[in-house]
């Protein structure tokens, strides 16, 4: 009887290899190894948004996407969104900027409440009432976000998480309100809209890297650094698969399916 489920051997090897690499690099960072990472413009964009909001006396808007749940495949994107929201809350608490956060995931809401509470208490403050609003998923969420941005004339918007059709609507509302916008999603169908409509787009994996960066825990940077060898390996495997398919070398293609 096989130990590993058939068809999942390569997946298992990749999982073990990535986890081992992440663990090793976190350990290295703990021991003092310096890791230099390219700073994402969107991270600076968040600081700029909060500063702008204070100068203009207008609020900052945050939302973490209109789809998914913590028990599904979109959970990592939601957790990344929570991390961006927490950083934003910390900045808003520090500079006394008004923050409006909209969440449509009932399971993520307690996380946002807890993290925002921590962020404000870090600066010795309480979360102002109605900072976090719950609007159920669907068109009520889409319209709610759009109308809040327009009505409150948000100075800036930060939108990170799993977005679907509402991406273009909310980004458009931000554009109409003249807001400086940071937005990112790993949902490939919506990336193009954010890339074209917002000032600081985060494309796909950028949201996870940004989340690790914003956590302000140096060890987390080890995991971002650890992704690179595997991305390089993926490119090489893709090229090998392309060559083996076109030159009719089936064993290589079969190897990837074991």
């Amino acid at each position: 009887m096989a130990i590993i489920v058939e068809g999942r051997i390569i997946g298992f090897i990749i999982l073990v290899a990535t986890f081992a690499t992440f663990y090793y690099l976190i350990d290295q960072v703990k021991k003092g190894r310096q890791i230099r990472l390219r700073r994402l413009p969107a991270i600076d964009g968040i600081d700029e948004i909060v500063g702008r909001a204070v100068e203009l006396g207008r609020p900052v808007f945050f939302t973490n996407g209109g789809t998914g749940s913590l028990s599904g495949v979109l959970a990592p994107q939601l957790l990344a969104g929570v991390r961006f929201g927490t950083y934003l809350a910390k900045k808003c608490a520090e500079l006394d900027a008004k923050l409006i956060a909209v969440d449509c995931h009932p399971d993520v809401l307690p996380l946002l409440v807890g993290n925002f509470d921590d962020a404000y208490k870090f600066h010795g403050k309480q979360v102002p009432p109605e900072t976090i609003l719950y609007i159920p998923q669907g068109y009520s969420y889409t319209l709610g976000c759009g109308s809040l941005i327009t009505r409150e004339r948000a100075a800036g918007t930060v939108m990170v998480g799993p977005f679907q059709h509402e991406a273009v609507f909310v980004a458009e509302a931000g554009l109409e309100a003249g807001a400086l916008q940071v937005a990112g999603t790993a949902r490939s169908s919506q990336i193009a809209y954010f890339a074209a409509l917002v000032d600081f787009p985060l494309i796909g994996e950028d949201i996870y890297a940004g989340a690790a960066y914003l956590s302000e825990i140096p060890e987390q940077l080890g995991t971002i650094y650890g992704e690179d060898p595997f991305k390089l390996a993926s490119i090489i495997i893709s090229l090998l698969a392309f060559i083996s398919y076109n030159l009719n070398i089936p064993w290589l293609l079969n190897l990837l399916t074991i």
Partner: protein
Amino acid sequence: MSQLTKKSTPVMITFIIGFFTILVYFIALPSSVTEASSTLNGWATTIVALAIGFGTIVLLRTHTMRVMQRRKGEWVYSIVIIIGILIFPLLYLTIGPNSYLYKTFYSTVNATIGASIYGLVLFTLVGGMYRTFRAKRLNGLLLMISACLVMLQIAPIGDAIWSGFPILGSWLMDYPTVGVYRGIMIASAFGALAICFRTLLGYEGGHVSGGGE
């Protein structure tokens, strides 16, 4: 309960359940173990249901406060929301989801409002699309050209103008688009793995925050 226990207990539960779920997915284990994993998934559904209940309570509390404070321009809408939140579960529990009244309420209120909102959203979406496809920058120009080609592939007029439009549109969708999507998906998958790893080992911390530390 100390702050340390408050943080370490959820991290430990996350680690044990996460590790167990990964094991069950990859390792060929006896059926009793896989059944236990399915039961755990059922627990996740229950927890999400509890969270939905929490969300509903927050919503009710917020809008009840607005009504009590008679907040200008808002409290009337809050009454509508409170009625909406209460009436559907009440009808569901008393007369059931197959009753005429429940179905009428759903189709004449919920479905009509949904359709109306869709109509409103559509105009803004068109505005957003227009801005997206404006050729202000090179990426906007490329997006506009690709979108036009795909539209001409789908719309019958494209084929009528030139028989090459459907071929060009299909090629664009089947090769460059799929290639780019897969590239983004692979990179995102590694990013997701990293965030899962951090969550499993308690480095992420976002899911165990609260209490003002």
